[in-house]
């Protein structure tokens, strides 16, 4: 494969470069952006226009699907429980929940009197149906794996759902916060992909896969009526076209778009538009394939970690918009985060490489335009590890086949995830041996046992301790590097108020347009 420069990316660099030069000439500092979007009173009767990248023409409103039209889900549906900023599980459709002593049976009490958009009342049967649908192999839901431990779901009475688990799990409710777990009405799997009937703050008006769609406020929403009257969703595939639409005031908000730094400058400095941050929303990783000849040796992996300073990667690749990762995959905003910095010692890394006879280690690091910061991170990382004598050749590949051809196939690459997974799901889904999302193919028996022990532990303090021990083990032995957590830079109109997003949570209820 030959390194290529995407033409559009090149242009972005040119324009960005020109802007950066202009700023430098005025003595402007590095990128400074507002921490949060504006808040305030919103005007009544407003319509917001949101541009989104569509997954494909096969996308669907079925939340369980891997091709769900993500932006619609939070507007149309509710889950049993959701996540707060600290990663704690809080009520949504369920008001309270409890388990038996060994955490194998969980009861959820549903809010009474909630109605679906078609007027039917929500009952425990709908919740049971939703999870049966997710667990159905036909659905091929990404959340089916994490929920595999569910053996039986029972509608005890109209507002009580009982989950019986095959193995004890004290963190079970957190598994129901995933965005595939939105509740749909009983027997609706056949048509839910088009009808979008949920209990959420908005009702579907129209929807075209990979095209435009409209939702309007649900007047009978149990948590109060939404501020906006309508939201129009538009699908714009090309990132620069999406930014142009914002700059030309054709849309008010770009969803699922992490602006690169040059573009963020343009948007922040244009009249009428601004940039908001979603703190540490992007979790960047550099998986070293555990099954590869290069990285099977734990000493090799340790040397790779010791060799670089994540603070340097943060300041050069992301211009400081984020937090250094120190190879701990748990984002700092989660309560379970282990606040420890591993050492950074290129000399020690050099010595380790020498001890295993690899002082001239050289390999390729793969990157692509799939995400705007990949190449910057690869470059920053490669220049950091050079100090320890590691030479990495940056290899740029096609974005559309990056996750089918390079991911989990090449020994070293740049990858990323959205943060916002609860601690148990994060560690089990991405680091447990054999998990389908385990991108470094790392396998450590001690680690798996630790996770099992944590799940079975119903004491909150000692369970937290176990999750932190698991983080320590990842830092010491795992095949995944976590150089940085990046803030997502979201382009939006200056008219937008009360925009709030963290993890996979998006506040559709308060979102509005400025008065006047």
């Amino acid at each position, binding site marked *: 494969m030959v390194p290529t420069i995407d*033409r*559009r990316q090149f*242009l972005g660099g040119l*324009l960005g470069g020109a802007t950066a030069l202009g700023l430098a000439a005025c003595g402007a500092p590095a990128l400074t952006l507002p921490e949060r979007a504006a808040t305030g009173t919103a005007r009544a009767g407003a319509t917001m*226009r949101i*541009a989104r990248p569509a997954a*494909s*023409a*096969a996308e669907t409103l079925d939340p369980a699907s*891997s*091709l769900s039209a993500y932006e619609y889900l939070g507007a149309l549906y509710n889950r049993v429980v959701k996540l707060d900023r600290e990663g704690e599980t809080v009520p949504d459709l369920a008001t309270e929940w409890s388990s038996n002593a060994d955490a194998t049976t969980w009861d959820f009490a549903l809010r009474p009197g909630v109605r679906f958009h078609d007027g039917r009342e929500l009952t425990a049967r709908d919740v049971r149906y939703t999870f049966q649908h997710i667990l159905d192999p036909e659905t*091929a839901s*990404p959340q089916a*794996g994490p929920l595999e431990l569910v053996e039986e779901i029972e509608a005890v009475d109209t507002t009580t759902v009982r989950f019986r688990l095959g193995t004890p799990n004290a963190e079970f409710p957190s598994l129901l916060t995933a965005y595939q777990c939105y509740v749909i009405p009983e027997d609706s799997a056949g048509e839910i992909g088009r009808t979008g009937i949920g209990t959420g703050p908005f009702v579907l008006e129209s929807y*075209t*896969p*990979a*095209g*435009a769609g409209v939702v309007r406020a649900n007047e009978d929403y149990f948590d109060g009526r939404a501020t906006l009257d309508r939201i129009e969703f*538009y*699908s*714009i*595939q*090309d990132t*620069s*076209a*999406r930014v*142009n*639409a914002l*700059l*030309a*005031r*054709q*849309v008010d908000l770009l969803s699922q778009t992490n602006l690169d730094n040059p573009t963020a400058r343009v948007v922040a400095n*244009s009249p009428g538009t601004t940039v908001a941050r979603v703190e540490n929303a992007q979790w960047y990783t550099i998986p070293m394939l555990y099954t590869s000849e290069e990285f099977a040796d734990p000493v090799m992996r340790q040397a790779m970690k010791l060799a670089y300073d994540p603070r340097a990667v943060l300041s050069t690749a992301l211009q400081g918009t984020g937090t250094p990762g120190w190879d701990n995959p748990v984002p700092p905003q989660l309560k379970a985060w282990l606040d420890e910095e591993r050492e950074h010692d290129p000399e020690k890394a050099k010595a380790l490489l020498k001890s295993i006879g690899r002082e001239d280690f050289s390999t390729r690091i793969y990157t692509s335009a799939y995400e705007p910061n990949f190449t910057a991170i690869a470059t920053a990382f490669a220049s950091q590890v050079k100090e320890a004598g590691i030479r990495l050749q940056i290899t740029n590949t*096609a974005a*559309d*086949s990056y*996750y*089918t*051809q390079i*991911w989990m196939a090449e020994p070293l690459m740049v990858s990323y995830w959205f943060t916002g997974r609860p601690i148990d799901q994060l560690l089990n889904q991405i680091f447990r041996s054999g998990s*389908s*999302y385990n991108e470094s193919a790392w396998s450590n028996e001690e680690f798996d046992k630790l996770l099992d022990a944590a799940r079975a532990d119903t004491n909150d303090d000692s369970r937290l301790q176990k999750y932190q021990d698991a983080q320590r083990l990842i830092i010491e032995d795992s095949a995944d590097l976590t150089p940085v957590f990046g803030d997502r830079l979201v382009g939006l109109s200056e008219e937008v108020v009360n925009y709030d997003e963290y993890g996979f949570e998006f506040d559709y209820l308060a979102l509005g347009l400025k008065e006047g």
Partner: protein
Amino acid sequence: MARLIASRLATGLITLFLAAFFVFFAVQALPGDVAEQLLGQNATPEAVETLRQQLGLDSNVWARFVEWLGNAVTGDFGESLVSGESVSATIWTAFSHTLLIAIPAMVVGVALSLLLGVWAAARRGTRTDSTVSVLALVAMSIPEFVVATILVLLLAILVPVFPAVVLAGPDATFAELVPAAVLPAVTLVISMAAYIIRAMRSSTIDGLTTEYATTAALKGVPRRSVLWRHVAPTALLPVLPVISINVAWLLGGVVVVESVFNYPGLGKLMIDSVSTRDLPVLQAIAVLSALVYVAANLVADLLALAVDPRQRTMHQPRARRRVKEATR
């Protein structure tokens, strides 16, 4: 004459067949397949295998080619692997949207560049000539996506006269598309015109130095008439192939321009189909592009025949012999 046209048609058909052949097998060689793309990153190998069987991706590639070609001849390109809709219907919608920007761009672009080319040639060596030539050279050197971006910056963002992108998607109505078609069409005119201007200019300059032009001028035919009645029609002849290539490029899906404007035409459909590995759609677009290409060249050839009577006899074997005898 009829034999000549028949042979041109036959060549065109063979070209089309070869294009279809290469397109089909090139598409097979793309890394990754639709099954992987449809199921996403976390697909199990079993699920991918099952879907592959359902889609018939595991059967013999030659058999699939013959079957596909047989259906394609009747205008049936199958169903999209992604949306499940008829490929022909999807493609006609997209193609009609592309025509909405391509035809105005073509008409305006060709007329404008022929005029500018003749005008520059007539004022050869003056400031007008050098201005036109330099501008054409600049337009030639700037890629169309830069032209598009500059136009968006000027006419959609700084002075919001036209929309920057099409929001409505493939279901957009004619009324929604017309204002949004202006900037893409202008981009195409700018990108296309430069080549035709330069070709027309040099061809006209050659024409002005010929003996018949000099004779006409000496006979007292007004300068304007010499230029437009005697020189320009003949000068058009070598420019026709240049025009046909540009027209074919234009109609065959202006991929980059449509992508920048989120314009729901053939080019954007092609990009989307590549990224989702929607092979039937991709193949149909490629064949349609080839068809347009062949047709544009054919029309250019026939137009050349109509404009220049010499070409009609040139292709006859006996006539060629006679020329040889004459030179002996």
